[in-house]
């Protein structure tokens, strides 16, 4: 067996000093090499010194901890972050309601277009009128019923701009489920949420619904 070279010794000296070298014969060989090689013996002593230094530095630093002010600052930041997230969640919920309302409006507009195409030309819609004083002026042109058909008068859309006098508006008759009314913010009984009802939607010039009334 060839004796260990200085290069081989250098590769294992850290493990040798730290007792990480499990191969007993290799360990004996390395120690034998250190006995006969002054440079490698000096290296081994240096590694020993380094180990002592590192252990001392490790022990000295073991008790060091983050200053308490950091925990306080982080806790405050955590609470702020939580608030911010809740705000975002609320905004997303509102956005979802908005999207649903817009979808409803598109459906209503589409129904209105179909209904308009069906009425005889020149009869006019008669739909544009004052948003207040809901009466004949705000009823659709093909309105054949009487006021007795109305289950209720126009009810402003919650969170909408409300009904203002002298503001041009249009009445659009639509068929929709009661659940869709819930999306607009009206209270809906879960038992008959799927029931289809007819409703007149008062649509402002900007295309947003202002009020709704149910028709029998």
């Amino acid at each position, binding site marked *: 067996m060839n004796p260990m070279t200085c290069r081989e010794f250098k590769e294992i000296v850290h493990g040798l000093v730290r007792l990480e070298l499990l191969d007993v014969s290799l360990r004996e060989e390395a120690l034998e090499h250190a*006995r006969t090689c002054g440079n490698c*013996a000096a290296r*081994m002593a240096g590694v020993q010194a*380094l180990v002592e*230094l590192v252990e*001392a530095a490790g022990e000295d630093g073991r008790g060091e901890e*983050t200053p308490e002010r*950091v925990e306080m600052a*982080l806790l405050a930041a955590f609470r702020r972050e939580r608030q911010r997230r809740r705000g975002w969640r609320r905004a997303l919920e509102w956005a979802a309601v908005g999207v649903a309302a817009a979808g409803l409006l598109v459906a209503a507009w589409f129904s209105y277009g179909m209904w308009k195409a069906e009425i005889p030309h020149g009869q006019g819609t008669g739909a544009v009128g004052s948003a207040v004083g809901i009466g004949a002026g705000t009823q659709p042109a093909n309105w054949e019923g009487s006021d007795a058909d109305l289950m209720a008068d126009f009810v402003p859309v919650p969170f909408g701009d409300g009904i203002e006098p002298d503001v041009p508006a249009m009445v659009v008759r639509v068929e929709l489920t009661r659940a869709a009314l819930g999306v607009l913010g009206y209270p809906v009984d879960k038992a008959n949420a799927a029931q289809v009802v007819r409703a007149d939607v008062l649509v402002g010039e900007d295309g947003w619904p202002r009020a709704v009334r149910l028709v029998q």
Partner: protein
Amino acid sequence: MAERAEPRDVELLRRLAAGDEDAFLVFYRRHQGGLYRFALHMTGRPETAADVVQETFMTLMRAAGKFDAERGAPAAFLYGIARNHVRRAQEKDARYNALPEDGTGGNGANQNGPALHVEAAFAGEGVFEGLARAEAVQWLRQAVGRLPQHYREVVTLCDLEGRSYGEAAALLACPVGTVRSRLNRARDILLEKLRPAGAGTKQVAARWGGGS
């Protein structure tokens, strides 16, 4: 023991991501000490280390939801964030640190002063016989601080924090073999800094040759 703690960390991170303040506090208190010492050894400045810890947990509270248990342990996720903040802090420090007047680049006094005392170790004495303990520790910390980043990380985790090679590999997201080779190289560099040229070779040889 670490294996048993990991599932709890995963659970804490999940709750933390959902806005649970208690989970955040437990997770913080469990990891802040080790993380602070890691940052301290990496940056060499207590204020910067505290900033690194704070920034790390700030990032964590925003990014906890992105943690994927299949890609590593929560501690590895945390140290990954911390390493980025350490790097940023070092870049910032490097920008604002004034050059020393002696023109040594900040290393001259540290390299030449205490290192001369270390000669005692090579002359067959214990390292602390020729050098006050505090001074020696300070010298070592500065020497570690001058190591390249990837060497400094392994020395900090394995030698100064006493973590196993496996733990260090998990925290640094690299193979154990890489940790071993980097550590070996880092120790060689430290040894070269520690060793004054030609110091006490004969005495050391006699000591280790059994010639007492």
